[in-house]
């Protein structure tokens, strides 16, 4: 892999950038791989990357039905934070955040991780209590996060209307290390690094069947033929139910759309990420200038990457109320992705009823920020066959046992 740097750019500039190599190849599938990862989203690619980097397993294929990163990893609002309430979530999201902090260097690809600071507004006494609880929990989990006053909120977010009239801002949970990243770059950086390790990323190749023998996985059928594998890691977010069905079991998952939208590009007006969970909207401004906006999911099951209009209106109302200046700005584009919502809104990193088949899914509305940590934990599970401490709490058994990891409990925050 040729390294990227300012010097490399300068060199290439002299010859009209004609010397750049492909970031990843377009290989035909081999007959067999030690591990097949289904789904070239961020989580699948990161799983493959850490399989190679940490566990030395490099005979790996990543099979993607469309274009790599074309699932939720390529269409999310890029919010990153680790100040989750429950121990299990905090551990894996913090692992992810730490990896994000060094990811550009690690991958030699600028993923533009931007620790610009993230606020979650408290607009009711209930939220105040919930966020303070999170501060205490995070302190014991080794995660920096703080409670800030409404005046501090106003300083960080000059365009906010903290005086209501409906839900005055009472303060916020603030994580200075939180922020955003460039979602496509995360996918591309991992893909390039996987490719450089000799892994095959096979795009436009849909898995259509999972072959098992005596309860153990043997391989997959795809639109490019059958491929054998030693182990199978299924990392397909919204399509997890479909893949599980191919292997003969069901998942505690429903698939439904989450939408996001952007404004026309404007000069910077907001430098941090702000989530307002009571009125349900979040906002940040990309480095290109568009406001990146989102809110809640559409509940009806839906695999179409399109949601209903009213969800946009609901969120936009909240945005206009909270940041009145955006009323005269305009929506440029809206889109949707297919969420994988589990019974407790927490992810699954787990063995399955089929031996040597593993699933990583259920990240729902909040898995972009988890990509490195999830990949790390999933790689460990796949390599060793048993979960490490990061993955263990996220096993499928928890639903039978009633051992839920519910993040929404403190102040209704699911992501």
């Amino acid at each position, binding site marked *: 892999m040729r390294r990227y740097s300012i010097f490399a750019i300068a060199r290439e500039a002299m010859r009209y950038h004609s010397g750049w190599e492909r970031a990843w190849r377009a290989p035909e599938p081999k007959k067999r791989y030690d591990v097949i990862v289904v789904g070239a989203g961020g989580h699948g690619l990161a799983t493959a990357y850490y399989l190679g980097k940490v566990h030395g397993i490099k005979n790996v294929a990543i099979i993607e039905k469309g274009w790599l990163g074309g699932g939720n990893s390529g269409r999310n609002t890029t919010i990153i934070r680790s100040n989750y309430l429950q121990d299990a979530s905090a551990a894996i999201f913090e692992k992810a955040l730490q990896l994000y902090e060094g990811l550009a260097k690690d991958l030699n690809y600028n993923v533009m991780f931007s620790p610009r600071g993230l606020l979650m507004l408290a607009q009711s006494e209930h939220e105040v209590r919930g966020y303070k609880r999170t501060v205490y929990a995070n302190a014991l989990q080794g995660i920096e996060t703080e409670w800030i006053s409404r005046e501090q909120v106003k300083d960080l977010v000059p365009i906010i209307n903290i005086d209501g009239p409906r839900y005055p801002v009472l303060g916020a949970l603030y994580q200075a290390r939180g922020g955003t990243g460039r979602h496509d770059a995360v996918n591309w950086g991992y893909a390039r690094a996987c490719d450089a390790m000799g892994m095959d990323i096979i795009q436009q190749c849909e898995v259509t069947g999972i072959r098992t023998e005596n309860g153990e996985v043997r391989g997959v059928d795809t639109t490019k033929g059958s491929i054998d594998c030693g182990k199978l890691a299924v990392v397909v977010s919204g399509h997890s*139910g479909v893949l599980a069905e191919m292997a003969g079991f*069901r998942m505690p*998952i429903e698939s439904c759309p989450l939408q996001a939208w952007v404004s026309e590009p404007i000069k910077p007006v907001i430098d941090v990420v702000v989530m307002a969970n009571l009125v349900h909207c979040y906002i940040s401004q990309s480095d290109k200038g568009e406001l990146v906006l989102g809110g809640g999911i559409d509940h*009806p099951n*839906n695999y179409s990457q399109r949601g209903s*209009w009213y969800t946009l209106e609901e969120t936009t109302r909240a945005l206009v109320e909270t940041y009145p200046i955006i009323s005269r700005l305009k929506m440029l584009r809206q889109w949707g992705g297919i969420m994988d919502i589990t*019974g407790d809104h927490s992810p699954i990193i787990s063995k399955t009823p089929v031996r040597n088949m593993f699933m990583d899914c259920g990240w729902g509305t909040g898995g972009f920020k988890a990509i490195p940590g999830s990949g790390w934990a999933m790689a460990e599970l796949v390599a060793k066959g048993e979960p490490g401490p990061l993955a263990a709490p996220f096993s499928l058994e928890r*639903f*039978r046992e009633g051992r839920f990891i519910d993040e929404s409990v403190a102040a209704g925050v699911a992501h």
Partner: protein
Amino acid sequence: MQIIPCPYCGVEAEETELTYGHEAHLKRVGPDSDAADFEAYMFTRKNPKGVHFERWRHSNGCGKWFLAARHTVTLEVFGTYPAQTTEPPAELVEKIKAKCPEWKGWK
């Protein structure tokens, strides 16, 4: 905006007049049930990429729960029927079969 007719009051309701209620035809499993059955009843969802039987409530309307067969990719609504039944009406099943030959049935 999805539009789904309420079989009780006949209104062609749009989504904002309705509340979604997830998978239909679940049979409640009570105290002495097997752990796996209970888990299945509570969490293990059909979630098909295709024909889905689901519950809706005409909440900003007549207040009634009803059931619908809807395609989760095309979002076609094949039909709706009252909630007080344990299985979809036969003619609806026939209609779906005719429209979606690959459909494996509602069970």
